[in-house]
């Protein structure tokens, strides 16, 4: 008799286990298209009497692969942010055949000077030089504005990142506390782990992270440089965004747990993720391009400055066609003067639109009679124009803060600067494509381990159906056997 009863109870246990497994299968299928969902599996336990019962709910996971994915995600997000910045800067260059780049503006000015030199008495030619100078100053102002915008966007991107990190860490704390409490049900635990993995993935977009699991189920989060972001409690990430970032301002640093994690002089700088990329754009890429523009502007102001024609000369050189707020003092030679590109303008004394005299460029004297070159008022005076053309094509010394060669003509520096931007964009494009490929591989690899294959689940469902049918058949068979027995007893 014992065996018939145990057959019945085993069949019943089989039914229960099968229905539990079908519940898991159905959950797997329902969430097959959720990228944050990890495949679950109900394990079976053999009882002392040889029967089965549902064991623990297993959640497919692979720490190595998920860590690889987190790294790849950080890298990919960061490279994309850098690429976006370079693309924005590249708009100041435009297609090589298009008009409107700084190099184009310099060339136009030089050509207008040459035309004016060929016929210095022609007022149209003289005005054309002033017009080209104005458009070049405008191009430099616009390019400088664009750099400022890119840096400001990076700064506000950092603020957004910091906000996101703080929010995500707060959410992570709730899940982490639940997971380490020990009172959580297996179903809840799997769901909480899915959610905390999703949070880590979002977090890794903002900043490069490493995680460490503790025995009680809690997880600690560090930046890729080793600064604690979360350990039982979240650390506060602080950052003071800047409203505007002119060429001369630097922007603030980001602190985690009191440690500076990005920005210049950071002891433990984070290397990947949005924050690191934004910091690189704001503190390295943007300022370098700005320095190049500023040096081009300084080159123009210096080249067109007027020299005292008296002999001996008693007055210092004074700014001519191109001016800036510090005019008429000529900016110091070979030294970067931050923000000049935003400030450069055409001296209104030359501009006939505001009552100026375009012939001042031919004659000199914008700074008084000591600076007049054309002393005998000859209408065809070429010396000044010729020397300006010579000065524009002659190499001058630029500050090494341009990160380019320090010895260029103005046109040379402006085309080298365009090349610098495009080199950066091309590098960033390659890096971003590579990082995307790595991310997609990592996603794929992790998904093979932890993702749901509907076909697999369906075939498992078929097996479950069969075993359910079999268990039911056993029950009916045992039932009829017991019935037969009862009949014979009666």
């Amino acid at each position: 008799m014992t065996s018939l009863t145990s057959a019945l109870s085993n069949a019943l246990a089989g039914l229960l286990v099968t229905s539990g497994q079908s519940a898991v299968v159905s959950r797997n299928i329902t969430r097959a298209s959720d990228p944050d969902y990890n495949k679950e599996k109900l394990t079976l336990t053999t009882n002392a009497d040889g029967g089965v019962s549902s064991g623990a709910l297993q959640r497919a996971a692979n720490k190595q692969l998920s860590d690889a994915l987190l790294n790849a995600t950080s890298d990919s997000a960061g490279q994309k942010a850098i690429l976006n910045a370079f693309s924005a800067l590249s708009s100041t260059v435009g297609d090589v055949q298009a008009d409107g780049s700084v190099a184009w503006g310099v060339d136009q000015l030089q050509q207008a000077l040459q035309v004016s030199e060929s016929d210095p008495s022609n007022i149209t030619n003289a005005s054309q030089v002033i017009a080209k100078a104005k458009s070049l100053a405008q191009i430099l102002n616009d390019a400088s504005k664009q750099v400022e915008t890119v840096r400001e966007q990076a700064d506000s991107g950092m603020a957004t990142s910091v906000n996101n990190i703080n929010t995500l860490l707060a959410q992570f704390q709730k899940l982490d506390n639940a997971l380490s409490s020990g009172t959580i049900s297996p179903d809840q635990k799997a769901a909480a782990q899915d959610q905390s993995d999703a949070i880590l993935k979002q977090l890794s977009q903002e900043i490069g992270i490493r995680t460490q699991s503790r025995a009680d189920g809690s997880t600690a989060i560090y930046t890729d440089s080793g600064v604690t972001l979360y350990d039982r409690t979240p650390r506060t990430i602080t950052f003071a965004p800047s409203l505007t970032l002119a060429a001369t301002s630097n922007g603030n640093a980001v602190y985690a747990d009191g440690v500076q994690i990005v920005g210049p002089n950071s002891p433990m700088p984070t290397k990947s993720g949005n924050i690191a990329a934004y910091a690189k754009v704001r503190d390295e890429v943007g300022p370098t391009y700005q320095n190049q523009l500023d040096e081009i502007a300084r080159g123009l102001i210096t080249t067109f400055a007027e020299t005292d024609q008296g002999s001996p000369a008693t007055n210092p050189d004074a700014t001519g066609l191109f001016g800036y707020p510090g005019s008429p003092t000529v900016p110091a030679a070979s030294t970067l003067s931050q923000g000049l590109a935003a400030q450069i303008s055409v001296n209104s004394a030359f501009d006939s639109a505001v009552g100026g005299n375009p012939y001042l460029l031919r004659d000199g004297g914008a700074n008084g009679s000591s600076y007049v070159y054309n002393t005998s008022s000859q209408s065809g005076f070429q010396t000044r124009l010729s020397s300006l053309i010579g000065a524009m094509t002659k190499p001058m010394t630029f500050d090494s803060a341009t990160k380019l060669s320090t010895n260029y003509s103005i046109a040379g520096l402006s085309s080298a600067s365009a090349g610098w931007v495009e080199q950066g964009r091309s590098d960033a494009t390659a890096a971003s494509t590579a990082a995307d490929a790595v991310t997609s591989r990592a996603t794929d690899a992790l998904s093979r381990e932890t993702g749901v294959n509907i076909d697999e689940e369906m075939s498992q469902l078929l097996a479950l159906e069969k075993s359910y049918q079999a268990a039911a058949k056993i029950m009916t068979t045992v039932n009829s056997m017991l019935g037969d027995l009862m009949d014979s007893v009666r």
Partner: protein
Amino acid sequence: MVNGVSTLSFQMSMLNNLKKGQTDLQKAQNEVASGRYDDVNLQLGGNTSRNISWRLDLSQTTQFIDLGTQANDKANASQAALDSIKNSANTFLSTLAGARSASNGQTLIKSSANSMMQSFQQAVNTSYAGQYLMGGLNNSNPPLATYAGGSAETSFDNAFQSYFGFAKTDPQAANITPTDMQAFLAGPFDDLFNGANWSTDYSSASDTNLTTRIDKSQTVDSSANANDPAFKNMLKAMIAVQDAGVGNLNSSTFQSVIDYALSKTGSAVQGIGEIESNIGSAQQAISLAGTKHAAVKNVLESQIQSTEDVDPTEASMRVNTLSTQVEANYAVTGKLQSLSLLNYLT
């Protein structure tokens, strides 16, 4: 157990392949349409600066070709003016020779010099595109002032009066000896064409000529200057026969004036020939530079083309390959969508 690919990543990878195929196809189509790389700057990367320099050089070169053409036109205009002066000077030479022994020589040559003077002044004051070609750097004013009735004539009259003691129209001129006349012409008369007298009475031209830039660091002087001795000699000859007492002179003195004029006109013709040959060599330099610029332009254009342009055959083949690939992707996606166990379970 074999790990199957997860359904999600399977679908995502199909989607990614489709997207990538479409993006590549669009790029290839742009390249076929424009003949250049889809994103030239990205293709060039750091070489962008090199290509920008090429393009700037190209536009400079084009400008130098234009400037050279203009300079050549200007030189041609100068040559034409000089030719006309030279031709009328030659005619004047034969008129002088004829007038020397003709009975009405004095009246004849006076009127001839008068009309010659007008055409000479016009030729020296030739302008081209608003510039007076022979004015040097002072090219916005006609360089040569009108003699008759101007300060130049007054200065002459004063010089004549103070040397001979009577006015140039006075019949006493008949008493002037050839020696006196020669001394006057070589002395006070010649002084009228020197230094401050010259620039006050005759010419507002500056001695320096306008140069033409035909290359980055090469300039040429392709014009004549009204202050050239050739023009002074011409003026001396014309004014001498016109005003040095001519009309009342005795025949031997008249002949000495004619001799003087013949010699001055001769050196003027020679001088003008020299100016013309100078302008000619400047024109040669312009044309040499033009040939060089044209060659440089060709090289630059082909360099730009070879770095920025796509091979049209290759690009259109790529469009074909890619569109086949995208179609295949669609077909495979459709097939794979139906490849699910669900479709086979009843």
